[in-house]
């Protein structure tokens, strides 16, 4: 007898249960479902804004339904998770070399976190929250 290499299947629909890191990856990826849905909501909001004050108020009112609140909470979690994974990834996609040395990755993502915080505060400030 001779060679008969055995191919073990890579299960195309359930592979992500194999390793915790795959689940982490998938949870990062499926944040896009929530973000996409939220974008639809934003477009709808723009529609209302364009349609005048009454439509806008009606839009704000629909936001208050319990289902909507739960939805937005989920989106918030997804968006924050996305942001964290994105900033951590930037150091990989765009390493920064100064002379012989590379700027430590933590510093690059750190800088992103700081910028994120500043930007968020600025927007909150402009929106009159703080």
């Amino acid at each position, binding site marked *: *007898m*001779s*060679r008969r290499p*055995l*191919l073990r299947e*890579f299960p195309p629909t359930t592979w992500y249960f194999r390793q915790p*890191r795959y689940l982490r990856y998938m949870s990062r990826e499926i944040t896009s479902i929530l973000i996409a849905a939220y974008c639809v909501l934003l477009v709808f909001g723009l529609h209302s804004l364009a349609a005048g004050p009454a439509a806008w108020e009606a839009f704000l009112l629909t936001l208050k339904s319990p289902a909507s609140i739960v939805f937005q909470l989920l989106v918030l979690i997804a968006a924050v998770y996305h942001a964290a994974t994105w900033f951590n990834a930037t150091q990989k996609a765009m390493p920064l070399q100064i002379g012989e040395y590379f700027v430590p990755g933590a510093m690059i993502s750190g800088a992103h976190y700081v910028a994120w915080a500043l930007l968020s505060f600025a927007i909150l400030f402009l929106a009159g929250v703080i």
Partner: protein
Amino acid sequence: MSNSPPRSHPPLAAPPEGAAASLGRPGGSSERTVTLEVLRYDPDTDSEARFQRYEVVCQEEWVVLDALNKVKADIDPTLNYRWSCHMAVCGSCGMMINGEPKLSCHAFLRNYEGVIRIEPLANFPIERDLVVAPDDFMDKLKRVKPYLIPKQEKPISEGEYKQTPAQLMKYRQYSMCINCMLCYAACPQYGLTPSFIGPAALTLAHRYNQDSRDGGRKERQEVAATHEGVWECTFVGACSEVCPAHVDPASALQQMKITSSIDWIVEHLIPGGKP
């Protein structure tokens, strides 16, 4: 030599038993019986793979490879696996240990409890037991042209190409790949789409692209910038997490996506632009 050599016969401190020398940390080496559950497959007799259990008395400080060597020497000579250097540099001894791609010479028993499950590297056909067929990887390595294509030819008599330490550091990390294929076993995109050139081979292309002496990026892009190339990667990042040589292929691939995108823009959107 100033001292006259002593008379008695020279016993060098006696080595520990057999080929698997004992490993240890200060603080005492103790014995421990380890249960290995090893995937077996012999194409001569088996139609399916099966697990076989071995109870091995090990030194607490051993690596998994030492345990396998002990099985092979004392319990079951028919168990097959690859290894050579025992120092994480030859890249032979990759296997799945409790589902995680690892170099068995760098997987310390002290980090495992209970039954240790050992399987051949995922995503490769199993030749026999823990031995996989790396043909696909070897083929892909070759396809990315992993050799210096000089920017300017220069005869040896004119000495070395100058390269500053900073230029060296730009690619050095990516030149550290030991071709162990752990990243291929870890990358789900390779599992899902076997035509994917994959992390290590693409990283090697990046290594030469980043080399100040090299001018071959354009040629390599013919392979790297295709669907089978970097664009199959969805940045799972598993490759970098398992890489024993800290090569960080995930980083290399993302950088290549950026440069490939810039190439594309130059080529298609800038009139007369050449990447």
